[in-house]
């Protein structure tokens, strides 16, 4: 191949890559900018035609409204509560499952099959009967949203177990054996040897499960029809007007997830790119 031809073709690919990169960055940044603009400007500016691309008047009124309306304050507290309760439960049960899967082949095969089987259930096929069953035991649509927390806990267990599995599998068998020889019980070995070693993965599993619950829309919509959590509330605000508070609420809802991306960013990007030299 002539050198000139190769350079020309390489240049073509480089330009294509640069164009694609520009599209990716625009698709991530521009919509978020417009959301932030809507959250920080009076509602009248949002309804302007042609639309304003730059804010004319900055105001915090939309955020003030989010925190003063009782319905919104209640939804924020409820979403936090459901997230923490379900993430604690899912991390605990996910740790049990992952530990058994990491230590025994039979548990591993059964565990992976069951965890992927759960993915196949359509949300509605569970949520509609679950709403009736939770109602029968007085847990449907309660102000503390305990019924939703139970369901979120169940759907987060696979996430927790898969996050923790590799960590438990990486604990060397010798460490456990030493404790056994010292006469520690199996439960004690798990609690005092394994759990402290995998604490980093436990934190990661807790965060992932919390985010899963914080973002979850379908079950929340069907199970909490009056005592809403944030995602269904944002849905009603978005579909039935109130642009300003909806935008402010949407912006606030991104805070936990963005914190995680920024905190996990280096590891995430490291895992993404290491060894990719071509």
């Amino acid at each position, binding site marked *: 191949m002539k050198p000139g031809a190769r350079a020309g073709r390489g240049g073509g*690919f480089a330009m294509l*890559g640069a164009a*694609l990169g520009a599209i*990716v*960055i625009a*698709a*991530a*940044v521009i*919509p978020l900018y*417009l*959301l932030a603009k*809507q959250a920080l400007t009076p509602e009248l500016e*949002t309804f302007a*035609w*042609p*639309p304003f691309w730059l804010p004319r008047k900055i105001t915090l009124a939309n955020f003030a409204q989010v925190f003063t309306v009782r319905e919104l304050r209640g939804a924020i507290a409820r979403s936090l509560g459901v997230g923490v309760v379900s993430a604690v439960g899912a991390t605990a*049960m996910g740790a*049990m499952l992952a530990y*058994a*899967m990491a*230590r*025994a082949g039979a548990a591993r095969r059964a*565990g992976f099959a069951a965890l992927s089987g*759960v*993915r196949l*259930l*359509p*949300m*509605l*096929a569970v949520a*509609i*009967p*679950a709403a*009736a*069953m939770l109602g029968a035991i007085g847990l449907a649509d309660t102000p503390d949203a305990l019924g939703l927390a139970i*369901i979120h806990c*169940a759907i987060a*267990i696979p996430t927790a*177990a898969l996050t923790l599995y590799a960590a438990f599998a990486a604990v060397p068998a010798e460490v456990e054996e030493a404790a*056994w020889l010292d006469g520690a019980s*199996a439960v004690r*070995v798990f609690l005092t040897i394994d759990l402290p070693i995998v604490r980093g993965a436990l934190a990661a599993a807790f965060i992932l499960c919390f985010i899963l619950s914080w*973002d979850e*829309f379908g079950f929340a919509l*069907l199970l909490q029809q009056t005592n809403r959590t*944030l995602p269904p509330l944002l*849905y009603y605000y*978005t*579909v039935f007007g109130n642009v300003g508070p*909806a935008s402010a609420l*949407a912006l606030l*809802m991104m805070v936990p*997830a963005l914190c995680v*991306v920024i905190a996990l*960013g280096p590891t995430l*990007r490291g895992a*993404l*790119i290491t060894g*990719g030299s*071509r």
Partner: protein
Amino acid sequence: MNWQARRLRAVFVAAPALFMVATLVVPALGGLADSFDRGGPSLENYAALARDPMFWRAALDNLLLPIASLALELAAGLAMALTITARARRSPVLEAAAILPFAIPEIVILTIARYLLMPRGYVNGALAAVGIAPAAWLAPRGSLAMLSIVVVDAWHVTPIVMLMLVAGLQTIPAELYEAARLDGAGPLAAFRYVTLPMLAPAIAGAAILRGIDALRIFSTVLVLTGPEAVPVLSTYAYGQWTDAQAPRVAMAAAMVLALMVTVFALGGALAVRRWSSDLGARA
């Protein structure tokens, strides 16, 4: 000690498993029973589905939307994965931007998408600024609305496809590219004869996982167009449950969807297994 450890493992498997069965599987089985019940065992709920033209529309859309979504997400995910891994220097800004849409809660993505696509929204505003007539992006029953749903869905989940394909790309040994280059292969030939065959397992895995989610599509359709403008099986079932007050018909529709998802997942898994054993036999 061994029996004690074994008993602990049994408890550790049984407790979460029982909890998940009680909270997810028992309701689903109850729903399955409900779908065959009309004050006694009956197929009437399924017959009601078969009589409803809206159900057939939903079933059809529930095939078209996932196919279009998968095609777009795999193509865009592959393009993004290649762009990111092919760079000589890493670009933290590009990597963060590529993952960002997935880190945004789905409902926030959909909220933004509504404001972008509404009749006097930013997309039409941008079009008007360059002299193009505005379009009704979310108008009921239009193919334009289906296109909007596919693009918005892809905007949110393509980062996951990209991550799976990047992981696949990193398992390809650099020596293969070196060998291809020495054999005189240009970048396109290397892509065709090295990258694509080596990446096929990752592509198949991403297609199965994303396909399952695409079949279950619910919130994107509900938030962008409402339950009946572009009906899919989930929104149809939701409409039957809320507006039509027909929970048993809703469960019948949900069970049709569950069947579709299961057939797709098992078929995909079987196809991948047969295909990889074929490859193994040839090697």
